[in-house]
């Protein structure tokens, strides 16, 4: 499987301020790759360096095997980009903007524009300045996809879309992916990354903390454990087992996060007169917080 996006030690400083540091990222052809991190972690900086909106301080950034700075024009012929905040020329109708956008590509995008507008239920004859944030976002989605790009870069794409439209949007992205497009999906909303991505990279303070398959990420993470002892079993003082963290005792109930040997956990739990026990798969948010905890 060839890499569509590849960065090696990609670093960007804004003056002395940290943007991203030594970002190594490989997005393979045909995958939907999640890029998660909170605001200011460096997601947009990485994307902007890939799109050559900003210049890297050091390192390498390649798309389709081409250098992002030297071969920018060739790369952008096959890239669709949806920025986090969409700003367009206010005096234009949606259809005018989309035709303008289409005029940059060597193909007829008319049918695709109509098709996407139909799916997203967008009135193309409306002026952009009169549109709601959600509808402006739809214009952004169409302008990012109208030329059927090989690589789709989405930066916080669902903000402004209602839940129903988000579902439509995810279906659309899956369809584009099935067509063969590779997708880089940047977000700070973990549930949507979990919903659509194959692999994910977690970025923290400008550095990639981990890159994993979504399924592995969940397996490799902590369990949330909560148990309640019988009323005649006395007040539990907590639990002592290697791998337990953040132990909280509330009356008869003990809750903690666990990562370690589950057999040791079960042996420790057997020492209590249990009334109830809950060992839950952690939410992606909790996994995420683990990577963000100092």
């Amino acid at each position, binding site marked *: 499987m060839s890499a569509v996006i590849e960065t090696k030690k990609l670093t960007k400083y*804004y003056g002395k301020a940290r943007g991203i540091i030594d970002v190594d990222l490989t997005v393979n052809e045909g995958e939907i790759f999640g890029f998660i991190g909170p605001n200011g972690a460096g997601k947009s900086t990485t994307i902007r360096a890939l*799109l050559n*909106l*900003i*210049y890297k301080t050091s390192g390498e950034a390649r798309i389709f095997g081409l250098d992002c700075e030297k071969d*920018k*024009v*060739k*790369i*952008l*012929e096959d*890239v669709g*980009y949806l*920025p986090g*905040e969409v*700003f*367009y*020329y206010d*005096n234009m109708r949606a259809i005018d903007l989309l035709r*303008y*956008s289409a*005029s*940059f*590509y060597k193909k007829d995008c008319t049918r695709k524009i109509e098709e996407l507008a139909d799916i997203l239920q967008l009135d193309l004859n409306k002026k952009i300045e009169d549109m709601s944030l959600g509808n402006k976002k739809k214009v952004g989605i169409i*302008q990012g996809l109208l030329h059927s790009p090989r690589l789709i870069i989405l930066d916080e794409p669902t903000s402004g879309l209602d839940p129903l439209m988000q579902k439509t949007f995810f279906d659309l992205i899956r369809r584009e992916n099935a067509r063969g497009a590779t997708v880089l999906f940047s977000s700070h909303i973990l549930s949507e990354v979990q919903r659509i991505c194959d692999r994910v990279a977690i970025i923290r303070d400008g550095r990639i903390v981990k890159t994993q398959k979504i399924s592995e990420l969940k397996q490799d993470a902590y369990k949330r454990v909560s148990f309640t002892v019988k009323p005649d079993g006395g007040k539990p003082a907590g639990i002592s087992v290697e791998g337990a963290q953040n132990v909280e005792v509330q009356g008869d109930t003990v809750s903690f996060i666990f990562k370690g040997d589950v057999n040791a956990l079960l042996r420790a739990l057997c020492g209590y007169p249990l009334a109830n026990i809950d060992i839950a798969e952690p939410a992606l948010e909790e996994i995420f917080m683990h990577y963000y905890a100092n």
Partner: protein
Amino acid sequence: MNILKRELRAGLKPFLLWMIAVFTFVFIGIIKFGGINTGGADLSKLLASFPRILLAMLGMAGVDVNTLLGYTAVLFYYVLICAAIYSVYLGAAAVTRESVDKTYEFIFTKPRTRGFILGMKLLAGWLYLLLFCVFSFLFSVWSIGLLRVAEDVTAQVLLFSLSLFLIGSLFIALSACLSALSARAEKGALRGNLAFLYAFILGSVSDMLDNAGALRVISPLRYFPASEIIGGRLHGGYIALTALLTAAFLLIAFSRFYKRDLT
């Protein structure tokens, strides 16, 4: 061509507003000359009592406003100021408009080089400047025709218009250059306007001196003074200097714009 078309469409409204203002100013100004000319009042004597600094600032120093050519020269000085201010706007807008309007993530992620996009934007600006000069020429010739005077000043009006284009070009390039050098996009136009103010003050100072000497070289609004145009010529050296400076400012603008982070 798509970028050029969009830029021309986007710039049409401000251009029309400028043209309405210039037309009104030139038309009323020329018609007023009819009153001065036939009223018998010697305006030159009145102006001679004014302080030289005031005359310099009004663009009337060393010009006989009792003659049609002298009067037209003063009017064209004000049109030149308009052209310079408009050009500052055109140059700054070409470099900073997309950043100020936050549309840069749309246009600069299209498969075109930055240089091409900036080039198209500046070309649109230059076309509007050219139209500004052509219409200023046509308005003036038409308005002067209404005076029904025997004197033919078309050649001089053409030279005035040509000087507008040359100085306007210099200010487009200077403004684009200063905007490209500004870390913050919003400051681009401000710096261009300050440069114009500097040129205006230097021009006025230059007019106060009997011999401006080297001061003229750094006073772009005085590169093509009325006295020379009335005499039927544009100074070749200053045409070359204008072209050279325009090219140098453009080179810096393109080079800096190519390297800057777009935010």
